[in-house]
Every structure is written in structure tokens, then in C-alpha cells.
């Protein structure tokens, strides 16, 4: 038998023994134990070391609010730090280790920090490291020296570095009523709503539904409360309209009654069942939420209140009743309210000796006096605990006479021998979710607690959450809330009868006993009452500032224990009542949430890959692929032993000498159709499209509303009311959205529809002196001679039996054609063109050669239409129609957009015969040591096979006026400096004779 396990009692399965290790030592527990209850049963008192002072700490609580007993759970290579031992269900093979200690929990070198307690007070880091530099041991440099040691010494568990192999899931759920919390209030609400036929979700962060019913010792409907809870859960389980989510923490309350929850599906299992995720993230959209989240017991603030063995009263009661574990053999209680008396009786019944009940109130009711004698405890009314004794475990405490009206201590202190001290500082409703939902908590002076405010979203409170701390009230409010949430009418049917220990729910307004020694407010962050007062003396008045300066409530428990006592001490220091000091707003998450559950299946590369219809052909034929936005496009079709530059130079040269073919399926394609399509295009493009003949294409330029260049491309008139617009690959989505916006919002009177048809068409551009001959040899159903297919003409024919649309237009500067076919036939047409091109020396070319030829021609792409350039900057002002307004026409002539010193498009030639880099700056004066006064930058560069030179396009200040002058490239990052000549961007065939044929 474990040293602290009771002979009988508890809701654990004593027939099943579970083996686990803690800090390497083997332990046993029973099914139903948490790591906390199992270790406590084994006589473990020391669970962790505190954050700052490395003080020994034991269990404070039994539930989710535990601040001290944080452990790291190891599963294979994966370590999950900072989990409350109270929330870890033990399983065979569980491996847990303590945190923030070196070399061991019992012997911790960091505990020396306690000696420096005065130094490490609130604001220590700000004062020491952020202040002005006075002497050698101050300021940021000192911080950089010390940081390594401080980070090692302070803090919590260490995260692992091994990848997490666990699987996580996301679920979306919809319900009429979400009930959060499954104590008597939550169970009644779920039952009432389910009986109305509502779709109900009941979520509780504990492993078993029932909440306080498991350990209250009360009777409901004539049976023990725990049995009543089990029976009610059984009734809910049978309902198709009820979803029960145990081990599920609702951690976020968002707009539109959307709540986030984390279900720990298999954390309590030795091996998950097949297909089970480790955790599941729930996004729940609830018609109405019933908040039945209960309340937290508050610690009292007195010297030594953090010593192992000092515990919350209800937590001890829970360990005794639910787990059959006594926190000590000689128990003392310290309270400011009635609820601790019930705990005393419960512990007495479980087999402990209750040596004393220390009550700050001088006036204790007869009912409570009766309970004290039932517990066989000495009642010390009008007394307070002023010190505790012991090391890794409590050995005793000292009490003194106390006046609750003024906080004065008097008389000699008296020692009491005890190995466990239970405290109760009153109860705070768990209003976190209501606070997250956007409402401000209201202070209730009777309850000495912040109560939930009027709802700002669709939720209804029930039970202790509303400040109604008795089970009878919880049951009544729960049923009413469930009925209301489900749209039912109030019921007059009798409620289950509760037999409970009586007690006044209102505590005495005593939060702190001021005596000599460290009194902890925030156990996890080691914030003492004196730290709070220090913050006040240093001028902090707002609770938000207090919180940040002292870090009160900022640890992983988010102030679940410390919030109200901290505010009370601050209010006293300020001489203001608590409601005037206010409270901080709670924010999600309520408890720690694993990143894995948020990501779920969304990890790795999430972007879709867009592949052209000819993708497989490119791969099979030696293309090196390149990602361009979401698309994958051939970069080069390299031959064995070729460098990238050798490959693209060969491809571009062959295209200009005979013919080349490139996959252009990625171009954005938008069908613009309807009676007003031509008028719409006139408004959208800077140039005219209404004058375009059917069967012809035109190059078009779009501006943004602010007058800057937006996108360019050709648009083909396929019919009177039928246009096919092409856009740049990168801007396809943005152009589409822009067109939709104007049709929907600005010009709804236009009868036009736009449809994205990018994926419907496969496109191949074939260019070069032999291009027409190749088409001639494979196209049927139409002529392709100059008369039938002039520059910018469109014909319809067939290639390999497949219907195709051919437009004669050129990006490469050669005589060139774009051949479009249905996407499903793209490869067939492409292969037919390749076959037809063989006798003519046709090469396939990729993006590099495409870019090279466009640089040689001086065409612009997204690198030049960069959101800062105007049509004039790019020498496209010939496209700006003066006959009609268009998008951007009113704004494009603003002073700053027509100023002569703007960056303009130019060509550059490398005079030292070395390659350029994109982004390199252009300077008039070369100063490698101290580069300055950039006059522009390179947007695109390549080796030009046509010119046999390294060339670039650039945007240069007043560029046109600089044609024929020299300057320098200055690229300090890549150490590339050298002379250049500035020339026109039209390097090659400036009069277009090659493409016009």
C-alpha cells in the first residue's frame, strides 16, 4: 500500500495497477489516477522548482489551474514540456520528468537565487539591462553577456527538437447548444437542451464528466452526486443529437459564436488505436453557448504559502474523495470562508487528523462551529497563519491573532505541528470564455469576485460560473439555461433534490496576511505581494501595466490562481476599491494549445502545384523545371554537360537562326463576352479595342486607378462580342479580380461576363525564320501565308486533327505564332509541332531563353511593371489613348508621375564583359568602399547571343537622356563593380523587321 493512499474510497480502479516513471524512478498508481494523484499517493511532496527563485514546490491544485507541478512528458524522441501533472492521466509506460532544476529536483543549484531575492524583485531585468549605462554591469551589452546564463537558469521545461511524428486532426462542428463544463450545471443544461431536440455538444476538459460531483460528497436525487452524474451522462450518451467530448478544453471564444476546442484524444493511452489522432482541434459554431465552467478556489497570500504541503482546500478534498489519497496525516486549514469546513469534514472522514481550522473571521457561524467539531478540529477563529516551516515538505505553521477588519496581527505566535496546510481564499468564477467573448467582468462585493458580465454574444451562464456556488443553484440554473438555449420554455417540473453541507458563499474580504517573509501571489512566475507593492511605489497604476511589469498572471497558468489576489493587493496599495482598479481581459487560449493541433494536416508545402498540359513531356525530354508562382515551367532543356547559360544561349540562338518552341500555357486567359465587351475593354485598357476587327489581336496595357502600370498582354477578338484576353502569368488572378470588381461594383450596367479560361487552353509559341514553314507543313484547314495570317491575325485550323487557334504575335522578336488548343490535346498538338519542326532544326526552349530574347527586344514584364512605374517610364506612352477615358487616365498625369527625373527603362551593356546581377545598382561615380547615390537598378539581365554581350534592362533616373553615356554597376553585396554603357532598351531589331517578315 502506498504511504498516502486511503484503505478504501475514491473513484480509481484499485484492481488495475499502472506502472510509470517520474524523474527516472519507477512508481505505480491505479487506473483513474492523474500523475499528480499517483505521485502524491506515493508520498512525493516535491514536484517542481519555481521559475525565478528555484524554490521547492508541491501540488497547489488538483485541476487545470495547477501552477507548480509542471512536468515534461516524453514519448520516444518527442518531449512535451510544461504540462500540469494534475492533467496527465497515467498509463503503463508513462515517462515524465520534472523541470527547471539542475542537477536534480531535490538538489537544485538554482535555489541559491533565493539568497538574492531582494535583487531579483519586480523589474529586475528592465532595471539591470535596459537602463542607462552606469558602471560596467549595466545596459544591453551586459545583457548580451548574461543572457545565456539567465535563459538557462530561468524558465520552464525545454522543448524538444525532434520532429513530432504524431498525427493531428481538425474538425468543424455545428450545434444548437454548446455546453462548456460538465458539472451539475453543465449536465443539467445538456440534458434539458437535448430533451428539447436541440443538437448539443457537451465538452469538458477532464477525463470524466461530472465536475465537482466526483468529489463533493453531496447527494443528488437520493444517490451520491457522482452516481447521479454517471446516470445523467448515460442518458445523454443514448441521444443521436448529443455529442460528448471529454478531455476537450474549449480554449477560445471568437466572433459569431465560434469556439475553439482541443480534444486530447490519445494522450492518456499507451498506444493509440489505429487511425486515432493524438489531438483534435475543434472549430465549433454554436447557436448558443451554455457556460458552466465553474470556479477556481483562490489561495490566501501569507509568508511561506508556497511551501510543498500547502494546498488549496478543495484540491485536498478532491484528492481524498476522488482519488483516495490524503495530502497529509495531520492537516490544518486556513480560510476566509465557509467552504473549507466541508473540506475539513471530508478529510476527516477519509482518515486524516484535522488538527486546526484557522479562520480569519472572528465571528464564525454555529453551523461552521458544528462542522469543525465534526472534523474534530480545533477552531482558531480570528486567527491567521503567519509562517510555515519545513523544506521539501511541510512540518508546521505559526498562527497569530488577526483582526479581519484592519488586517492587524496581535499577540504571540503559536506553533502548530502539521504536514499539510489547506487554504481557501474564496472562489472566483471561471469567466475566461465570457471575457474573451468581449464583455467586461463586474466586481461583486458580496462574493468578493468578478462575476460574468451581461453577454455580448449568444451565451448563457449557469452554476458557479455565475457566482451561484451551491449545487442546488447550479442544477436549477443549468436546466433553465439549457431550456432557454434550446428555445424551450421554462419548466416547473421538480428539480433533483440536493443534500449538501450548508455554507455562506460570501468570504471575508481578506486576501493577504502581512507578516515577515515572502508571500507568493503568482506561484508560477514567482511574483510576491511585495513585488506588487514595489510596482505601485514605482508609479504603476494600471492593472495592465502592473501585469507586464511584474509578469503577474503571465505564466502558462495565465493567472488562474493569482489574478484576483494580485488585484486586491494593488487596489489596497492604490487606496482604491477593486472595481476601480479593474481587471485585465482574458485572451485565448484558456490553456496551452499545441501548434500541431492548429496546423493539423496543413504542414509542409501547402501551395498547389500548377502543371501545364505538356508538363510530362517536358520532364521526359530533359527539361529542368523552375517554379514561377504556382506554376512549374521549363527553365532549360539542357544537353549533357551544358551549363544553364550554355543551354539558354544555344536555345535562343537556334530560335533566331531557325525556329524555337516554348510552352506558354501558363499565360492568364480570360474570356470577356457580352454586348458591352468591347466598351468594357476600352475602359479597362489604355488603348482602343472597340476598333479591333474580328479575327485580329492587339497588345494592350492596363493601369491601376492611381495611374501606375498594372499589366499587359494581347487580347484577341474572336467574335463581335467575344474576346480572349491574355494576361501575364503572375497577374492572372489579380487582373481577373479587378475586372470582376469593376463589373460588379463600378459599372454594373455593362452587359459583360468574364470567365477565367487559363486552364482550358494549352498554348505553344513557335518563332523564328522557319516558324511559318513549320506551320505550313502541319496545319490543315487554313492557310498560314502572310495574306491569310498577317501580323496580329488569327486563324482557326487543325493540327494532327485537333482544332487549333493560331495568332501571329511575337514576344521573341522573331516571326512567331501562338498556337492554342484544348488543354486535353495540348501534348498531342505540341508533339505534332515538334515532329513537323524536325526538318527545320526546331528547338524547344525554356524560360531562360524566353527571357533572353525578350531582354534583347526590350519588352517589359513584371520585373519592370513593378507597381512603381508608369506607362511613360516604360516608353509605352504611345498606348495611352487620348480619345477616351480609361482606368487610371485621370491620375496618370499627376506631377510626380510625369517628372523628368523618374526612373525610366533603358538597356545596359557590360563593358568589362562580365555578367550582371538582377537588383544591382547603377551609379555615376564608382566608390567600392562607400557606395552611394544610386541612379537606378537592374531589373533583368542575361548573356545576349544576338549581341554576343552581357546585357541588362534597367530603370535609371532620366534614362532616355542618358542613351550612349557611360556609368557603373555597383553591387556591393555580390562584389560586382564595373563600367557599363546605357543604351535604348530595344537592343535587337529595333524596327521589328524580323517579326513583320
Amino acid at each position: 500500500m502506498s504511504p498516502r493512499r486511503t484503505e478504501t474510497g475514491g473513484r480509481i480502479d484499485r484492481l488495475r495497477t499502472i506502472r510509470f516513471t517520474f524523474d527516472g524512478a519507477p512508481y505505480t498508481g491505479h487506473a483513474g489516477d492523474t500523475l499528480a494523484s499517483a505521485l502524491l499517493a506515493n508520498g512525493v511532496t516535491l514536484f517542481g522548482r519555481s521559475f525565478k527563485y528555484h524554490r521547492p514546490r508541491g501540488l497547489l491544485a488538483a485541476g487545470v489551474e495547477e501552477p507548480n507541478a509542471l512536468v515534461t512528458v516524453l514519448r520516444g524522441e518527442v518531449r512535451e514540456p510544461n504540462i500540469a501533472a494534475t492533467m496527465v492521466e497515467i498509463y503503463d509506460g508513462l515517462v515524465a520528468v520534472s523541470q527547471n532544476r539542475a542537477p536534480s529536483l531535490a538538489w537544485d543549484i538554482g535555489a541559491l537565487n533565493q539568497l538574492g531575492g531582494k535583487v531579483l524583485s519586480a523589474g529586475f531585468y528592465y532595471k539591470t539591462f535596459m537602463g542607462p549605462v552606469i558602471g560596467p554591469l549595466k545596459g544591453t551589452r551586459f545583457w548580451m553577456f548574461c543572457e545565456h546564463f539567465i535563459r538557462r537558469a530561468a524558465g520552464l521545461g525545454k522543448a524538444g527538437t525532434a520532429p513530432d511524428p504524431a498525427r493531428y486532426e481538425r474538425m468543424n462542428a455545428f450545434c444548437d447548444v454548446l455546453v462548456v463544463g460538465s458539472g451539475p450545471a453543465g449536465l443539467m443544461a445538456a440534458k434539458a437542451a437535448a430533451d428539447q431536440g436541440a443538437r448539443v455538444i457537451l465538452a469538458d476538459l477532464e477525463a470524466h464528466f461530472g465536475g465537482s460531483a466526483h468529489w463533493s460528497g453531496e447527494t443528488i436525487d437520493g444517490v451520491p452526486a457522482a452516481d447521479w452524474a454517471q446516470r445523467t451522462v448515460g442518458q445523454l450518451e443514448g441521444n443521436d443529437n448529443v455529442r460528448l467530448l471529454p478531455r476537450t478544453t474549449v480554449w477560445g471564444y471568437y466572433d459569431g459564436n465560434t469556439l475553439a476546442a482541443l480534444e486530447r484524444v490519445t494522450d492518456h493511452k499507451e498506444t493509440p488505436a489505429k487511425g486515432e489522432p493524438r489531438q483534435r482541434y475543434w472549430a465549433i459554431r454554436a447557436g448558443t453557448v451554455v457556460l458552466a465552467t465553474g470556479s477556481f478556489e483562490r489561495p490566501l497570500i501569507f509568508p511561506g504559502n508556497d511551501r510543498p504541503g500547502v494546498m488549496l482546500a478543495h484540491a485536498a478534498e478532491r484528492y481524498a474523495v476522488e482519488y483516495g489519497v490524503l495530502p497529509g496525516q495531520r492537516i490544518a486549514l486556513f480560510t476566509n470562508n465557509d467552504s473549507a469546513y466541508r473540506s475539513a469534514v471530508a478529510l476527516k472522514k477519509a482518515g486524516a487528523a484535522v488538527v486546526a481550522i484557522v479562520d480569519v473571521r472572528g465571528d464564525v457561524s454555529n453551523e461552521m462551529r458544528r462542522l469543525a467539531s465534526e472534523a474534530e478540529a480545533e477552531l482558531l477563529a480570528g486567527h491567521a497563519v503567519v509562517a510555515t516551516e519545513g523544506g521539501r515538505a511541510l512540518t508546521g505553521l505559526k498562527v497569530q491573532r488577526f483582526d479581519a477588519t484592519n488586517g492587524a496581527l496581535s499577540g504571540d505566535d503559536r506553533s502548530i505541528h502539521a504536514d499539510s496546510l489547506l487554504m481557501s481564499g474564496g472562489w472566483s468564477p471561471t469567466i475566461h470564455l465570457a471575457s474573451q467573448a468581449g464583455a467586461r467582468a463586474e466586481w461583486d462585493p458580496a462574493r468578493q469576485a468578478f462575476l460574468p458580465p451581461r453577454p455580448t454574444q449568444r451565451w448563457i451562464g449557469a452554476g458557479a460560473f455565475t457566482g451561484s456556488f451551491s449545487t442546488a443553484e447550479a442544477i436549477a440554473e443549468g436546466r433553465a439555461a439549457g431550456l432557454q438555449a434550446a428555445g424551450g420554455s421554462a419548466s416547473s417540473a421538480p428539480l433533483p433534490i440536493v443534500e449538501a453541507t450548508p455554507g455562506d458563499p460570501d468570504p471575508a474580504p481578506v486576501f493577504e496576511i502581512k507578516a515577515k517573509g515572502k508571500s507568493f501571489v503568482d506561484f508560477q512566475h514567482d511574483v510576491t505581494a511585495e513585488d506588487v507593492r514595489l510596482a505601485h511605489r514605482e508609479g504603476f497604476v494600471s492593472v495592465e501595466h502592473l501585469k507586464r511589469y511584474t509578469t503577474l498572471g503571465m505564466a502558462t497558468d495565465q493567472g488562474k490562481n493569482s489574478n484576483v489576489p494580485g488585484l486586491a493587493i494593488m487596489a489596497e496599495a492604490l487606496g482604491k476599491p477593486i472595481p476601480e482598479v479593474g481587471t485585465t481581459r482574458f485572451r485565448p487560449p484558456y490553456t496551452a494549445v499545441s501548434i500541431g493541433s492548429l496546423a493539423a494536416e496543413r504542414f509542409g508545402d501547402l501551395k498547389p502545384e500548377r502543371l501545364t498540359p505538356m508538363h510530362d513531356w517536358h520532364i521526359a525530354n530533359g527539361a529542368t523545371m523552375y517554379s514561377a508562382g504556382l506554376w512549374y515551367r521549363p527553365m532549360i532543356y539542357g544537353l549533357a554537360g551544358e551549363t544553364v547559360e550554355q543551354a539558354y544561349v544555344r536555345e535562343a540562338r537556334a530560335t533566331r537562326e531557325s525556329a524555337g518552341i516554348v510552352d506558354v500555357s501558363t499565360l492568364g486567359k480570360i474570356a470577356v463576352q457580352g454586348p458591352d465587351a468591347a466598351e468594357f475593354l476600352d475602359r479597362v485598357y489604355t488603348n482602343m479595342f472597340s476598333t479591333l476587327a474580328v479575327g485580329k489581336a492587339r497588345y494592350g496595357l492596363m493601369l491601376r486607378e492611381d495611374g501606375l502600370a498594372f499589366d499587359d498582354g494581347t487580347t484577341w477578338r474572336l467574335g463581335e462580342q467575344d474576346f480572349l484576353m491574355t494576361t501575364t502569368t503572375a497577374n492572372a488572378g489579380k487582373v481577373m479580380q479587378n475586372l470582376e470588381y469593376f463589373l460588379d461594383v463600378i459599372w454594373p450596367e455593362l452587359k459583360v461576363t468574364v470567365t477565367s479560361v487559363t486552364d482550358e487552353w494549352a498554348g505553344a509559341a513557335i518563332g523564328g525564320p522557319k516558324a511559318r514553314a513549320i506551320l505550313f507543313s502541319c496545319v490543315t484547314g487554313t492557310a498560314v501565308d502572310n495574306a491569310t495570317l498577317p501580323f496580329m491575325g488569327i486563324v482557326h485550323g487543325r493540327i494532327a486533327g485537333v482544332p487549333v487557334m493560331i495568332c501571329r504575335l511575337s514576344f521573341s522578336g522573331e516571326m512567331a505564332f501562338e498556337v492554342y488548343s484544348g488543354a486535353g490535346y495540348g501534348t498531342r498538338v505540341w508533339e505534332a509541332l515538334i515532329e513537323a519542326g524536325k526538318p527545320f532544326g526546331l528547338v524547344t526552349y525554356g524560360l531562360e531563353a524566353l527571357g533572353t530574347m525578350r531582354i534583347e527586344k526590350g519588352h517589359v514584364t513584371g520585373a519592370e511593371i513593378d507597381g512603381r512605374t508608369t506607362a511613360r517610364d516604360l516608353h509605352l506612352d504611345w498606348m495611352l489613348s487620348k480619345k477616351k477615358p480609361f482606368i487610371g487616365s485621370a491620375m496618370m498625369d499627376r506631377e510626380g508621375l510625369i517628372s523628368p527625373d523618374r526612373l525610366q527603362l533603358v538597356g545596359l551593356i557590360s563593358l568589362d564583359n562580365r555578367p550582371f546581377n538582377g537588383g544591382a545598382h547603377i551609379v555615376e561615380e564608382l566608390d567600392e568602399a562607400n557606395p552611394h547615390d544610386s541612379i537606378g537598378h537592374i531589373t533583368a539581365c542575361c548573356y545576349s547571343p544576338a549581341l554576343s554581350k552581357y546585357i541588362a534592362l534597367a530603370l535609371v533616373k532620366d534614362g532616355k537622356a542618358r542613351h550612349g553615356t557611360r556609368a557603373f554597376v555597383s553591387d556591393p553585396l555580390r562584389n560586382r563593380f564595373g563600367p557599363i554603357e546605357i543604351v535604348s532598351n530595344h537592343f535587337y531589331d529595333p524596327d521589328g523587321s524580323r517579326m513583320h517578315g
Partner: protein
Amino acid sequence: MLITCPYCGPRDVIEFTYQGDGNRERPQPASQNLDAWNAYVYDRLNPAGDHNEIWQHSGGCRAHLRVVRNTLTHEVLSTAFARGGHKTESRS
């Protein structure tokens, strides 16, 4: 946040793209009033409270909607097609 699309019903906000302040008045296309154009292109209201906004159901039917939304509570008060018709009121 849920936005009720008149075609698709109440949908999560991730399906929508914010397309700007719905109070802007575009000047007549031929207008040369630069102040009016400046106001249209650059001025945005940023009220703390009810706001007229344009949203596109870009992950759905792609219609542009006029949405009245409270910027403090994120409550969507009404939605309607920007082209007109099919207004949905949802003030609770």
C-alpha cells in the same frame, strides 16, 4: 466571422476577400476633378462602429457584396450583391 452570401448562405470569412471601403464614390470616367479622384483612390473611412465594405466571395460564387459590418464587434449587419438586389439583414 461569418458573412452571409446571398447565393451561398452563411460562409466563413476565409472564403472572402476584402475589396475595400464601400463608401468611395468613383468620379465620372471623364472627370478631370483631381481632388475627387484623389479622394476616391486614397481616402478611406475607418469608423469604430458600423462600416460599409465591399467583400468578394472569391472562394465561392465570386460575387462582390456590399457588407455592413461593425468594426468593433465584427458583427455583420447586412449583405447584398454589389450589383443590387437580394439584401440580407441579420442584426440580432
